[in-house]
């Protein structure tokens, strides 16, 4: 490390000043500033500007707009110069819809139900209907078998239900 004559080498003293390992970019043109090159300007409002060369610095101080200076990165990006490679790399992003199972029916059950053919479904429906009819017949059979024992009990709820039903029908 370069030492000024008369100074002691306190290694820590230099570290906060020597951040030379980072390659900065020029605030005006977007060029890369390698360590020990260029100037750093701190404006009155504490904003920092880095210049790679006196050309950049001079133009900045003349308050030129880098967007109008043809060799700056800002201009090139704005006028889309030399960007064809980047455009080719661009990937289109599409959201993929995922099928998810619900608590009641997991993914396999949903898939199975969806993939049933119409014939199978109609068969299932017929089976369900016949099953229901048979169950109903059985119920009626049991009811007629025990008429004396619980006729009154049956009659009362039956009537009340019918009344209720009738009431609902009336309205």
């Amino acid at each position: 490390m370069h030492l000024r004559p008369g100074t002691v080498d306190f290694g820590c003293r230099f570290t906060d000043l020597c951040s030379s390992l980072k390659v900065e970019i020029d605030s005006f043109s977007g060029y890369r500033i390698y360590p020990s090159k260029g100037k750093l300007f701190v404006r009155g409002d504490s904003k920092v500007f880095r210049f790679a060369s006196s050309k950049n610095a001079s133009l900045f101080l003349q308050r030129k707009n880098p967007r109008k200076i043809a060799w700056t990165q800002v201009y090139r990006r704005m006028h889309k110069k030399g960007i064809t490679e980047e455009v080719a790399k661009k990937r289109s992003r599409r959201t993929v819809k995922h099928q998810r199972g619900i608590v009641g029916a997991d993914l396999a059950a949903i898939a199975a139900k969806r993939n049933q053919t119409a014939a199978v479904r109609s068969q299932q429906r017929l089976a369900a209907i016949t099953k229901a009819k048979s169950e109903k017949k059985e119920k009626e059979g049991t009811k007629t078998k025990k008429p004396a024992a619980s006729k009154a009990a049956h009659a009362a709820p039956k009537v009340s239900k019918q009344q209720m039903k009738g009431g609902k029908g009336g309205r």
Partner: protein
Amino acid sequence: MIGLKGKLNVIDNSGALLVECVNVLKQKVNNGWGSIGDEIVCVVKRARPIGAAAAASATAVKVRRGDVRRAVIVRTKKVVRRPDGRFIRFDDNAAVLLNNKREMLGTRIGGVVSADLRMKGWGKIVSLAPKVL
């Protein structure tokens, strides 16, 4: 490069606003140019008005116009070279007032100071500064 008649803004809360350099205190040379971290003798050209209440409170020593004080330069418009080869330049010349024992008069610093101060031994000022560049 602050020399005789060089004007500096004061960025601490000592009450002075503008000081004019009268002498640059360097080891062997009693004149010449002052840079960041150099002590100077200066005259207060413009100061903040001191109210009666402010004079009574003892938060910071308040200076008046025409006072001759010492100061340390913290920002210069002239570039200063860093050990890694960079050059730093600020937008104005600024100083912080001191007493004869190299202690600060104010208690707070408002604004950027140069990091070169630390190398020259003004660590206290650097630690008080809100931003160091």
